[in-house]
């Protein structure tokens, strides 16, 4: 699709892109550190990906190929809307294939297929501050990061184990980057945390909260835990009904009103690719209403 020439390439004016790129460079230089930036009002609401869109807009060149996913799928309504936005304002090629994309903007998932050097993964972030729900004041959390005063974060994990027997965080699971900054990896399921060590560049944009942060390729990213309660990237104990994968994150779909359900890969491109390649071993019967799993 050709670019709508009423707006600048990828909507933002060049000065704004320059400002964002400066923030991105700073973020790459200090892995996991939240860099404040003057987030612009965009044509989509705050909370709907304006941070990710601004980061993508600053990174896009006419030669790029863009993939946009939400919940791992290319055709959820907001992913469709954002992809269309860039088709109109940047005229870039778009794709649903992870391997074919140079920039991938994502909400709440990391693609199953390992990313390569030269790719950029842009995350949409609602609340960038991992300590926010322990300490609501920005003035305090800023100090805690500066002084590496993360005791409160571990207290929270301790309290979880004391109360529930387990750490009770299942998504947006906090990590420590390069042994220095504690970071919120955006609301990805903790199953995706191990993928945060990757060959591609990872950029995080929070528009409403006005913060950008980054993880350079091959950075050390450790999910917080205790030595005797190690981090577990868990997922549902099922295989994908459509392609048989046992190693992917699954969506639970309710198929009838008797509570029958089935599990399918959340990453639609990965699942479709497996099915097309004939590596699929689909299961035919949906599973019975869920029983307590051991």
């Amino acid at each position, binding site marked *: 699709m050709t670019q709508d020439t009423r707006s600048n390439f990828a909507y933002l004016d060049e000065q704004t892109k320059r400002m964002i790129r400066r923030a991105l460079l700073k973020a790459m230089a200090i892995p996991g550190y939240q860099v404040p930036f003057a987030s612009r009002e965009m044509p989509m609401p705050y909370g709907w990906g304006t941070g990710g869109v601004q980061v993508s807009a600053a990174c896009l060149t006419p030669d790029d190929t863009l993939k946009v996913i939400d919940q791992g799928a290319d055709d959820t309504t907001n992913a469709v809307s954002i992809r269309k936005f860039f088709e109109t304002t940047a005229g870039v090629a778009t794709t649903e294939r992870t391997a074919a994309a140079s920039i991938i903007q994502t909400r709440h998932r990391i693609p199953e297929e390992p990313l390569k050097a030269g790719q950029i993964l842009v995350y949409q972030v609602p609340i960038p501050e991992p300590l926010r729900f322990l300490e609501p004041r920005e003035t305090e959390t800023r100090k805690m990061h500066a002084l590496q005063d993360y005791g409160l974060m571990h207290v929270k994990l301790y309290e979880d184990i004391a109360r529930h027997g387990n750490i009770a965080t299942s998504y947006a699971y906090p990590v420590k980057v390069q042994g220095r900054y504690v970071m919120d990896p955006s609301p990805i399921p903790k199953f995706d945390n191990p993928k945060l060590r990757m060959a591609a560049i990872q950029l995080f944009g929070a528009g409403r909260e006005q913060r950008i942060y980054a993880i350079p390729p091959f950075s050390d990213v450790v999910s917080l835990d205790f*030595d005797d309660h190690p981090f577990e990237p868990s997922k549902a104990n099922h295989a994908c009904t459509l392609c048989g994968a046992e190693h992917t994150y699954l969506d639970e779909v309710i198929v009838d009103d008797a509570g029958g359900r089935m599990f399918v890969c959340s990453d639609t491109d990965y699942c479709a690719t497996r099915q097309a390649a004939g590596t699929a071993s689909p299961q035919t019967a949906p599973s019975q209403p869920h029983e307590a799993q051991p």
Partner: protein
Amino acid sequence: MTPLFSVRDLRKTYGGRIGCTDVSFDLYPGEVMGIVGESGSGKSTLLNCLAGHLAPDAGQVMYDTRHNGMVDTLRMAEPERRMLGRTDWAFVHQNARDGLRMSVSAGGNVGERLMAVGARHYGQIRAAATDWLERVEIDAGRIDDRPSAFSGGMQQRLQIARNLVTGPRLVFMDEPTGGLDVSVQARLLDLLRGLVRDMGLSAIIVTHDLAVVRLLADRLMVMKGGHVVESGLTDQVLDDPQHGYTQLLVSSVLQA
């Protein structure tokens, strides 16, 4: 022997009013010093200046650090000062609620300082917390309860445990028995005396209650209107007060 803590010419004013002035003393390892005076005497201001909660207008507050010898804490960078506050130093507030996280369990409160300095084994942290709860005579079964469910005396003891778990060398206490009823006070003082002795702590205790200093403090400073009017060994000062104000203070204590 080098003093652990050395203060010179400390002064803090509020506009034209004197908070405290001309305060100098040395504190040696294992020594407990009491600061007494009526309310408004400047003792709390002094304590806050010593502990790094208030910035004084003049003077030096030197501390014998583990690795760098005598350092003027007033000129320390904030990260270092915070680290000091988490390890070598402790501060027991008059109101336990100011020194505790009320929405965190007792175990979490005691474990926080350990976690802040790098403890990463849940079982060990919990064991240390249990051990400390017992040392301050709190039933270990209450380790998962919130302090909001504790009595005032228990909260104060929890605050003490939270402060002492990282083995500090210097403890500041601001009216540690204030607001507690008499029998609870006695028990708390006994506990403090035992801990101070067992751990070889140095301490600076601010109080208006002479019974507290009689029991806990080796030395005493008497303050009035921001000035130190008398100082010396506790027993000497209390049994043979020289300054008129000290005499007034001693004589006005109701005889049991």
